[in-house]
């Protein structure tokens, strides 16, 4: 059953109630525009969603930690007042198969002592690495907090912007500039090799470079993805990740509350079947239930492939543009396993409760392990022994599970969308994939299987079918150089505008890309308001 819109006139319709669509809606509503958000699912949030899948246990079904969410959005939309609360992660814990473990803490001295057990050299290099990354992130921040510069434009404003970017880079020490260019093209492992020697340290650090991409830690280009995951900040501290209270859906709901407070109308269970295009102009949408809603502006927050090839249709696009969108790489490579546990997982290498569990836990014992996991994926299989990023948010946010019980969220790579049987055969392999994940974890947590009350396995196929993420790509498209900045989603169309007049895009498939950032939604809305598009 879907609801019907309350009004017949809207300044803009937003397709998709993920956090970016909601952010765009909130900014437009705040500026006095009449906005309608249409979400296909029964809950808001898209990939930033919380659901009580098992009585008493609330899961961050897809995304599970947050850092990239722009702090100025939190302030401008007053998200704290609307319910947003973020709790920083305290540690990164790496259990090792030999019974040892490495924990990186927010306390740098403690981390230095831990790392020194594996390499004194690395332990002393860490602060230099952190400093270099902080500088890089600060540079990058100036790029992600603004619409992508347009290198092809001769407009004075654009030239100025490029110049300014060039100038800020020139001001920085040369080694940093050099580093920045290197970073864009290197592999995550090569990049880390510039600093560190210990595999035990490099392996868990390198995985930031493969999240959401169908590449291995030794593949060129992954160093950029690493930076993308470092760019987040909490309270001015870069590289800080946190839990959202009540799961990552809490973020989406806070944004939705802000949007509603400014007068936006938001409807769930209202999937859009297609965008109405007449004479090259968008003028409304048709819902899956057959309803038509008109508006001279339509903003899509779903991925570029879905927006253009399905909701609009190639018949309305020029060949060159359609070809670019077809070439846009999605190829999802990750899955998710969510577990409800009747007790705290007991790691054999470091038993008991403790702050080492109050953060993320990586199953990434060595670089070779990660590369082997990728090898299997290359040939169309999920990894038997995958990289897993585990969090147990109930340890710091006890509201997500009954007292003494826990939720365990496992982000898994690799699970290629294109398995060799064909993606539509994923449902038959779903539980085998879930078993591989639980078996891998059980090597470190011997009692895990017995403590599982409920298990949800999400394959890339499920991410596509249920969450509308084409090919299961968690970022609405890979974060590779040829798909970033002024090339996201297509050359010449990186400013949220599209070749269809009145149709705009604002999801993770636009600059500055995926993750719970809010930036695409915010920048799209601000660009539209600035150009008086509505």
């Amino acid at each position: 059953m879907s609801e019907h819109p309350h009004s017949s006139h809207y300044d803009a319709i937003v397709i998709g109630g993920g956090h970016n669509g909601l952010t765009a809606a909130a900014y437009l509503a705040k500026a006095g525009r009449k906005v309608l958000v249409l979400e296909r699912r029964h809950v808001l949030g898209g990939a930033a969603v919380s659901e009580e899948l098992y009585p008493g246990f609330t899961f961050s079904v897809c995304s599970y930690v947050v850092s990239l969410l722009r702090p100025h959005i939190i302030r401008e939309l007053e998200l704290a007042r609307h319910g947003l609360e973020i709790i920083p992660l305290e540690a990164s814990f790496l259990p090792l198969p030999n019974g040892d473990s490495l924990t990186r803490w927010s306390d740098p001295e403690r981390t230095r002592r831990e790392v020194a057990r594996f390499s004194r050299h690395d332990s002393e290099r860490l602060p230099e690495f952190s400093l270099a990354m902080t500088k890089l992130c600060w540079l990058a921040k100036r790029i992600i907090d603004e619409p992508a510069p347009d290198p092809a434009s001769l407009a004075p404003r654009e030239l100025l912007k490029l110049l300014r970017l060039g100038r800020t880079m020139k001001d920085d020490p040369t080694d940093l500039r050099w580093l920045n260019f290197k970073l864009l093209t290197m592999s995550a492992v090569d990049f880390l090799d510039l600093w560190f020697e210990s595999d035990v340290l490099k392996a868990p650090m390198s995985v930031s470079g493969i999240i959401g991409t169908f590449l291995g830690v030794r593949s060129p280009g992954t160093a950029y993805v690493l930076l993308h995951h470092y760019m987040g900040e909490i309270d001015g501290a870069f590289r800080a990740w946190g839990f959202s209270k009540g799961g990552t859906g809490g973020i989406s709901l806070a944004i939705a509350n802000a949007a509603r407070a400014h007068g936006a109308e938001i409807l769930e269970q209202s999937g859009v079947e297609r965008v109405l295009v007449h004479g090259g102009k968008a003028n409304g949408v048709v819902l899956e239930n057959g309803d038509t809603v008109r508006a001279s502006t339509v903003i899509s927050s779903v991925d570029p492939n879905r927006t253009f090839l399905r909701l609009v249709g190639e018949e309305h696009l020029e060949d060159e543009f359609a070809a670019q969108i077809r070439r846009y790489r999605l190829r999802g490579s990750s899955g998710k396993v969510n577990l409800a546990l009747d007790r705290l997982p007991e790691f054999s290498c470091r038993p008991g409760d403790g702050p080492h569990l109050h953060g993320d836990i990586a199953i990434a014992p060595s670089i070779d392990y990660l590369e082997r996991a990728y090898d299997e994926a290359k040939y169309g299989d999920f990894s038997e022994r995958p990289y897993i990023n585990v969090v147990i948010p109930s340890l710091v946010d006890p509201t997500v599970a009954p007292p003494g019980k826990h939720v365990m969220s496992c982000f898994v790579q690799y699970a290629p969308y294109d398995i060799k049987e064909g993606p539509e055969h994923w449902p038959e392999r779903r539980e085998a994939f879930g078993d591989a994940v639980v078996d891998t974890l059980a090597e470190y947590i011997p009692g895990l299987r017995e403590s599982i009350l409920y298990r949800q396995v999400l394959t890339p196929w499920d991410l596509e079918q249920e969450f509308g993420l084409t090919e299961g790509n968690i970022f609405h498209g890979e974060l590779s150089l040829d798909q970033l900045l002024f090339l996201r989603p297509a050359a010449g169309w990186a400013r949220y505008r599209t070749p269809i007049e009145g149709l705009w895009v604002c999801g993770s498939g636009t600059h500055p890309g995926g993750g719970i950032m809010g930036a695409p939604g915010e920048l799209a809305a601000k660009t539209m308001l600035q150009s008086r598009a509505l």
Partner: protein
Amino acid sequence: MPVPTPFHPRTSGLCGSLLWKEWSGYYAVRSYDTCHEREYYALRHAAGLIDVSPLFKADLYGPDAAALLSLVTVRNLRKLRVGRVTYLCWCDDDGKVVDDGTVTRIGEQHYRLTGNGPLCGWLARYSDGFDVNVEDTSDAYGALALQGPLARAILVAAAGPEIEQLRFFRGRESAIGGIPVLITRTGYTGDLGYEIWVERDRAVEVWDRVMGAGRPYRIQPAGLDAMDVTRIEAGFVLCGVDYFPAHHCMLDSRKSSPYEIGLGWAVNLDREPFVGQRALREEVARGAVWELVGIEYDWDEYEALHAEYGLPPQVTSGAWRDAVPLYDTRGRQIGQATSGAWSPLLKKNLALATVRTGHAAPGTRVRVEVTVEYERRNVGATVVKTPFFDPARKKA
């Protein structure tokens, strides 16, 4: 040398950071970890347990207890019913604040007053002719503040289901593990929370019971650093920081009336005589000179200011309390910010400030001094209503 509180046997074992401070002559934990962050988040997301035993306490017994308290403090306590708590302050003859605290009516003729400084000597100045017995119970009781959104669930588990019914600013005698306690729904964090008052000899047992009940709810022992950030978010003034006890001030200009520290609402002016009444009447007629306000720094300007020096914006991790000057937009000094903190929850730089009344309206633009790279600069800020953070659960 400070002395231990009744909970010291437990807090000392947990305080791995060895970060202690002196609080009214007692050892008090600043933070159990090297950084108070985890304790702060526990206070806002789960629950924190804070040893607040160093608060001064006085128990008043007798038919005239209410009359004495009504004479000494700015509130008329004759109407306070059994089981109620009220927040108030008391003044000297010139209507300048001496201290602030709470009064709980525990029984028909039994009241407990708490404060930041010693109480009994001050009460004794006025108690002649009153049929009342004032007992200094500061050392007799240990006190715990259990604060945070899960405080109720924990206390229900520890003390029984009747806690469910205990409303904001109410108190009741209860028992935890058979040990008699007084529980009040009060606190200094501006959140859902309770304070537990227990005889010192049984204090450790109560600590253990509450911690035990709180474990499944991820309770954390919390220190004063974390509490300081929360009290600023809650907009609570701190005696000795945001105002100074009148009877200890060298300068008259340092003294404040209740109206000047945001406690005007607590004054019941038109009633039987009370200490400071005449002066307060005059002040109301004349209008106060100063007002306590909340301010929020302009983040963009703060960030831009740091960028001038090639720095990302720096936020302090804890609360600060060294006062800095405040200016109007034309550069004239209009007051001072006396304490402040970066609110990790609100993503804002907050401060409590005392300003000349003409600059106190919400929305007023001011400038506040900040130091960047050893240089004194200032950034824009806006006067806002306090509390900065006021969750519905506090009173729900």
